């Protein structure tokens, strides 16, 4: 019974996030952290950040972090429920819009959607970054490393994995030097 309730809660927490992921998975990370760590107390901050790191290094979309959470909390059933919850609502919406689009392509729709949603996506992504960093161990070191990585991503032609590995090494070095 308890397990069933957990699966239902997993679905109810993750499914609304699906429709909030405007501009991609990065925009719901802040909300995800609030829900899973502060409201539901399913994970500690440390485990959340560990999972975030894993989801960025593992193959596939970063949003699969919820699959890992589902598995961690309720085994393979949890993984399946979490994955369906995060993909089904937004996918239904996309299929419905694709259906209408196919029968009546209309550039005005596209322009209006992009104009209206792009500012929200940018705001949510940046807000998620601030939430993640203010909960990360290391305080100012974390902020400095993140900013340097962000600037490097725009100026140096390196892949995301290389940048993450280099950033992580610099972070560990600074953390060790600061004691």
């Amino acid at each position, binding site marked *: 019974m308890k397990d069933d309730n957990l699966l239902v809660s997993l679905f109810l927490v993750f499914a609304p996030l699906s*429709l*909030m992921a*405007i*501009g*991609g998975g*990065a*925009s719901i990370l*802040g*909300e995800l952290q609030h829900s899973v760590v502060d409201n539901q107390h399913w994970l500690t901050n440390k485990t959340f950040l*560990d*999972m975030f*790191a*894993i989801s*960025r*290094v*593992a*193959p*596939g*979309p970063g949003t*699969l*972090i919820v*699959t*890992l959470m589902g*598995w*961690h909390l309720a085994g393979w059933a949890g993984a399946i429920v979490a994955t369906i919850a995060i*993909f089904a609502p937004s*996918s239904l919406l*996309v*299929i419905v819009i*694709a259906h209408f689009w196919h029968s009546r392509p209309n550039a005005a729709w*596209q322009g*209006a959607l*992009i*104009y*209206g*949603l*792009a*500012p*929200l*996506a940018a*705001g949510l992504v*940046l*807000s*998620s*970054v*601030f939430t993640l960093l203010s909960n*990360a*161990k290391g305080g100012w070191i*974390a902020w400095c*490393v993140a*900013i340097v*990585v*962000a600037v490097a991503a*725009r100026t140096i032609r390196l892949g*995301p*994995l290389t*940048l*993450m590995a280099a950033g*992580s090494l610099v972070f*560990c070095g600074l953390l060790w030097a600061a004691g």
Partner: protein
Amino acid sequence: MDQMDVPLAPDTSPPPNLLELFLAFTKLGITSIGGGVNGMMHTEFVVNRRWFSDKQFLSGLALSQSLPGVNVANLALWLGFQCRGVVGAVVALAAVVLPPAVAIVLIGNIVLRLSADPAIGAILVGLAVAAAGLSLSVGYLAMRYACVDAVSIALFTCTLIGATVFHFSALVVVAVLAPIGIGVGFARSRHERR
């Protein structure tokens, strides 16, 4: 406007069958590490396989990035739908999601066991911080792209401050601001047409 007159049909091959679709999108899902596969997808689907025209691909890309949901998954749904309708969309989505979903559980299982070790724990925090830096760069670019006039700057600022400072739920922010933004966008595109 000239490109509108170019017939699209000769540019594209006949639509792929479901197996071809599944295999192509599996490759895409597995290789989309850290984001930023769009250039590769364009080469794969438009240039090499010729399943889609430039226009089909680009409008799908723009929409999948602005609609809710994971970008790669949305693009898979969109392109899958163009090839084989709803079944094609579901097959493409499954191909993008399922193999990496199994992979992240297997990798996560091992890494989470090791993360109690202080050194590995520190490396993981470092990776999380660096990944946040990559998101920061993406968010900055998205902000530069999105903020085109006073209304869009106001929408961006309200979202950022509402979610970060006042801790409004993203659901509330989206439910209030998305209709305003899309409405203004509509009015704006009508105005431009005249």
